[in-house]
């Protein structure tokens, strides 16, 4: 972790540096372009979009599309905007991220500090779960949720996201804890500390960076999920992505692109915020954990 502050030993000439800055800015332009298109068109009246250039700045600036997308766009029979669905998403994401991170941390802890015969195979089995295409689990998952009585509930969605997120969180924590000195754990054991005591007092306090990675990864994936949200929610638990889809994909009628773009940015705000606020720790966390094969 201290390596973050370490400066690279590489020296480059001034000419090369100018070129590097130019290229970096060019890439920044490439990455920002779609966001710019969305942003600029979300503050234009619809007539300017259908009649004009999508890259041009608005002639008339308006925040009307944003207000509309949030509180009165038609996403169902009633014109509620995206507002109610936002809370549905929050209610689903927070517990799902929390549970999958805790389980991932415990699994990583067991797999590195309490090793037993066959643990690597078990880890391999869990890791392979990351690669299953979600489309194939829809029908059997629906049946299982039905049996548990969780169909159409927020807790059903939480379960689904925990199940398919655990492979990743376990991977992150396992790699992170692998680099953690096992001697400390052994010493604590000799002092009589139990399994959970060691986890709570020794492992967790130094897990900051990898918790950030795990939370960012899970938060992004779960917040952006559409397939599970659409299939396993009912009228009372539909998440934001489903509402956004309803807004954007409406089959007939006038497409209010400015409202669509405003809604799209609204739906993305929480994840954007997470990346911008925690992004700094993200590279640090990756560095400390997941890429140290």
């Amino acid at each position: 972790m201290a390596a973050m502050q370490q400066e690279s030993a590489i020296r480059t000439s001034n000419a090369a540096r100018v070129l590097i800055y130019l290229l970096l800015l060019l890439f920044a332009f490439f990455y920002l372009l779609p966001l710019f298109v969305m942003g600029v068109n979300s503050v234009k009246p619809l007539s300017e979009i259908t009649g004009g250039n999508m890259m041009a700045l608005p002639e008339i600036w308006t925040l009307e599309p944003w207000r509309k997308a949030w509180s009165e766009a038609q996403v169902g029979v009633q014109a509620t905007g995206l507002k109610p669905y936002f809370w549905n998403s929050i209610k689903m994401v927070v517990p799902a991220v929390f549970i999958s991170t805790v389980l991932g941390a415990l699994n990583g802890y067991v797999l590195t500090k309490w090793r037993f015969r066959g643990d690597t195979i078990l880890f391999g089995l869990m890791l392979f779960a990351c690669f299953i295409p979600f489309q194939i689990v829809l029908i059997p998952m629906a049946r299982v949720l039905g049996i548990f009585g969780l169909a159409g509930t927020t807790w059903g969605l939480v379960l689904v996201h925990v199940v398919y997120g655990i492979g990743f969180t376990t991977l992150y924590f396992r790699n992170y804890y692998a680099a953690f000195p096992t001697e400390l754990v052994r010493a604590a054991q000799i002092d009589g500390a139990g399994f959970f005591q060691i986890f709570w007092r020794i492992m967790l306090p130094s897990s900051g960076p990898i918790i950030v990675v795990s939370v960012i990864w899970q938060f992004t994936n779960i917040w952006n999920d559409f397939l599970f949200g659409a299939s396993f929610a009912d009228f009372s638990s539909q998440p934001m992505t489903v509402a956004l889809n309803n807004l954007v994909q409406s089959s007939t009628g006038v497409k209010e692109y400015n409202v669509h773009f405003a809604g799209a940015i609204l739906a993305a705000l929480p994840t954007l915020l997470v990346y911008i606020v925690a992004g700094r720790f993200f590279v640090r966390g990756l560095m400390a954990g997941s890429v140290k094969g």
Partner: protein
Amino acid sequence: MAYMKTRIAGVLAATSLAAGAANAGDVEVLHWWTSGGEAAALNVLKQDLESQGIGWQDMPVAGGGGEQAMTVLRARVTAGNAPTAVQMLGFDILDWAKEGALADLNEIAAQEGWDAVVPEALQAFARHDGKWISAPVNVHSTNWVWANKAVLDANGISVPQTWDEFMAAVETLAAAGVTPIAQGGQAWQEATVFDAVAMSAGGPDFYKAAFIDLDEGALGSDTMKEAFDRMAFIRANVDENFSGRDWNLATAMVINGEAGFQMMGDWAKGEFLNAGKVPGTDFLCFRFPGTQAQVTFNADQFAMFDQGGSVSKEQAALASAILSPSFQSAFNVVKGSVPARTDVSDEAFDACGKQGMKDLAAAASSGNLFGSMAHGHAAPASVKNAVYDVVTAHFNGEYDSATAVQELVDAVSIAK
């Protein structure tokens, strides 16, 4: 299959339990009408039910003309948590009826005399095994052409009555530097045009043999090749940017005078009206040349999922409200379609709507009302999509007409 039936029965038993747990006296409605006008029209239905003390739990899932909603429905039924009422199209309704999942609406149908007022061809999708299983909301007809009147007038074109006249009109427009045909480049849109072209090229008997009876002789015939050749002519007169374009953007091209014609279902009318255009003066609606007597249709319906044996009070109320003449009129005026019952007054409708109602009644009585292949009312989903594959591959230049005919026969045989 017998095993299947028991499994479904088990699922349905679970459904009724789940429904029992929800508020008695509510209906949960799965639909994909989320755009302003149609959702507002559906709200009429909601208010109607609420005035009878029945709550409406809204479950909208948009995307792909209901494809997304059908996936959701499958998950919901498998979970034993089926919605009370579901918006559905054509063969999907019959497929679910075959699984024994739909409630019997005969009682309410008999009370309100649906048999007499709903066209026969439509009843084919609303009844199964002699039982009414769904409540039709509307009839869309798909063989319409929409035209910009100013563009046509400026080029001295009158409404084409035959394919040859249509070709001549298209060539005049092309020579004048106007995009003759505004086309959206998605498989379903190309297939919508193909419906009308095939009907025009081969007539109603050919259409029925090929798309409804799936007769290999008709599918592989020279007439089919002629239909594909006509599609190639249309493709040659579409602008280069059509691929992936939404239908409403194609409509906008006609509205703005960038293009002369668009072949699209009656929902396109809403775009013209929203742009402040008047039927007859700003834009024209007419049947695809050579299909003046025919109507190819698709119809939105609400099927009621069986709530443990019999239809619930709320479902009956919903079905009755859907078929009520006042809702049929109010909804279809907004949606651009025409009422599913033929005895509704056409007073509230505009010129195109009035003509649509007249055409539907005439086609229904003369046996010229056919389900649209492109919209899942001629053959099951697997066959429909197989046809999409071939039509879109041909329209995008992957196949020539002769290959397309062969591929069509092959694709339909795999999908059947």
